[in-house]
């Protein structure tokens, strides 16, 4: 018991000394939404996910912090699952604007979306 305590103390001190930098991005519920969407086997409540993700965007705006890479594209996927292609397009364009690394991917996706009937 005492040994465990000492180990925990030593670990806590080391952790403080050599890791734990503040997070750059406002993560909100992005990672949880990724899990629910990919592991959910189609059982996910898309509306609830859109709400949760938009709340994260709003929270980031209020705290003046950037949203993580991929998050607006994730929102675009959610809108496209609900058939709201205009909102999906806007979200994909926001992703491309914030993160130019996504341009090739987003451009291809927008082209395919427009080609759909």
């Amino acid at each position: 018991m005492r040994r465990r305590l000492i180990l925990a103390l030593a670990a806590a001190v080391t952790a403080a000394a050599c890791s734990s930098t503040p997070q750059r991005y406002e993560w909100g519920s992005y990672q949880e939404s990724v899990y629910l969407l990919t592991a959910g086997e189609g059982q996910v409540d898309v509306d609830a996910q859109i709400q949760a993700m938009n709340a994260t965007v709003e929270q980031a705006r209020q705290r003046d912090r950037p949203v993580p890479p991929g998050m607006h594209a994730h929102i675009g996927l959610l809108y496209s699952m609900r058939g709201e292609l205009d909102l999906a397009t806007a979200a994909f364009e926001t992703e491309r604007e914030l993160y130019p690394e996504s341009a090739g991917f987003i451009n291809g996706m927008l082209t395919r979306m427009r080609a759909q009937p």
Partner: protein
Amino acid sequence: MRGILRLGATLAGALALSACASTPPFDYSIWLQNPPRSILVLPPIDNTIEPLACYGCLSTVTQPLAERGFYVFPVAVVDAMMRENGLPTPNDMHSVPLAKLREIFAPDAVLYLTVSEWGTSYQVVSSVSSVAIAGRLVDARTGTEIWRGQHRLAQGSGGGGNLIGMLASALVTQVARSVNDPSRQLSSVVSGEMFANPRNGLLPGPYHDGHEAALTAERDAMAARAAAADGSP
């Protein structure tokens, strides 16, 4: 819930301890030839018998990679696109040629992950969770491996004194599993350690404040090693 979190913090500390002390530094010479900005993460190959291992793990890697300074392609979008295009399993997705991935996503690097342990074994009054992940980062243009790493972590819960407390602990762990899988929490620590360990994780990417300094330091260290090698007979 609070108990689980506290255990996690202790674990993170233990990890930091081992990371600072014993792991050999990684050779970043290939990395430095063409440092990546963006990383395409494919859903992990699952070598466990746990059906949630693949996507449980996948949902814990974007955060440490992005905080390390990289553009990380949206993993759920990537997964959905692959599945809709006739690639239902991670094994299928991992076999897509790089040229095709470049055409669709245009990433600088592709991350291939494998989960080899995932889950909780329940004993009478306590449980042990373990997560083990391995990864290979490949230059999307050349196919050259620029980084590889792996990490494993096991976490016991329960066993803290009296019997009623231990029983409660086992119960809480099982409840927590259905709401918020403790393996996912463990996986966050494992992937964080694997990618951000200063000795053998990824060098900081362009969105990281330490990006330029880290690359310069690594280049200097390489030059120093080369000079030392030239100097010795």
